[in-house]
């Protein structure tokens, strides 16, 4: 670490050096690290959350369970683990728009959404969403209708929030699998709506 930007080495070089030192110092297996990386590149991502949302859209009992006990209902789909010890689902309605932020770090429900995207970790989002959410959402491309209240959830402890988006009109004929393909990461954080196909 060096706080002087002028002679700062690139993070790629420092990462390489740190990994070399750890492997020399401790019983660290680079293959274990490869597995961590692959898990979050390939297995754990927003498709998990999309399956949860699609099931809630097509199964009223599941929706009710999901809103009452998010962790258990999500676990029923096979999703849980780090950064998902206690998950709470909030539902978008015609009256209330929910959006999730973490002002202290970048806490995010990994089991259902994977690792957070760049914009979620960006200071402009972390700082602005709790001060001028309507303006921040507009900057990101979402115009929340006047008259629809905004609720901002700052995940400052270990509770992780997932937004249940509104089901788009004209999708009554679609099954859960087809619906899941419509659901985006951004809609499950609350910075976008799910678009009709």
């Amino acid at each position, binding site marked *: *670490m*060096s*706080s*002087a*930007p002028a002679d*700062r*080495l690139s*993070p*790629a070089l*420092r*990462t*390489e*050096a*740190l*990994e*070399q*030192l*750890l492997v020399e*110092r*401790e019983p*660290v297996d680079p293959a*274990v*690290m490869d597995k*961590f*990386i692959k898990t*979050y*590149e390939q297995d754990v991502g927003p498709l998990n959350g999309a399956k949860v949302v699609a099931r809630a859209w097509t199964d009223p009992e599941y929706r009710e369970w999901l809103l009452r006990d998010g962790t258990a209902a999500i676990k029923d789909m096979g999703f849980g683990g780090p950064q998902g*010890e*206690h998950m*709470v689902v909030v539902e978008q309605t015609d009256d209330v728009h929910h959006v999730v932020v973490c*002002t*202290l*770090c970048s806490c995010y429900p990994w089991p259902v959404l994977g690792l*957070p*995207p*760049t914009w979620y*970790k*960006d*200071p*402009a989002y972390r*700082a*602005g*969403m*709790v*001060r*001028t*959410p*309507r303006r*921040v959402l507009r*900057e*990101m491309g979402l115009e929340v209708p006047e008259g629809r*209240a*905004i*609720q901002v*959830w*700052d995940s*400052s*402890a*270990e509770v992780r929030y997932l937004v249940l988006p509104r089901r788009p009109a004209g999708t009554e004929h679609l099954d859960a699998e087809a619906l899941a393909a419509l659901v985006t990461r*951004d809609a499950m954080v609350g910075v976008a709506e799910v678009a009709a196909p």
Partner: protein
Amino acid sequence: MDSIADMGGTQGWGPAQVPTDEPPFAEPWEGRSFAITVLTMGRISGRNLDAFRHALGRLHPVDYLVDGYYGRWLNAAELMLTDSSILAPGAVDARARRNLGEDVTEPPFPEPDRPDYKPTAGGSLREVDLDPAFAVGDAVRTKDVHPEGPTKLPAYVRRRSGTVTAIRPAHVLPDTHAVFEGENPQHVYTVAFASTELWGPDAEPFTLQVDLFESYLEASP
């Protein structure tokens, strides 16, 4: 402590980014930094997730910001490793310079000095015997506290009045857990604040819901 990590409501960052499709790791080093940090925070440094977050908060603002999210993870991992004397200060920089062919002497590995710490269970949720001090609907006020050490009370909700909207499972208290002074699990509440309570009468209308530990709150007078 009031750290660079406590960003809520701070200004001057420019507009928010428009979301795009992106892979979890933009470059290979980001994935390596992620994996190194996950291994470091528990097993290698003998520390914990809250200590990692506190390490992020103790970084110089430049180190926090300049290389983005996985850059700050890398720097916090290095800080935890030097805290636990797994690596000497400057060791990473020296190795990286040697890898570039520079004639730099590397500091020797120090004698490890991990904290005397073992979690009582996995994860952060715990059972507590005491009943919650507050109920849903209670009017509460956040305390006027300015600790030198870690806290999860964001500065922008300090000394503000709100309403309890949910009681969450009890968690280990990061304020002590991060510095190995005990798990001290507490009830956690979601507290709603009107935007005008936070940002004055001209604030954009919205409701903030934020999760706060019991010791951060007192009954509203």
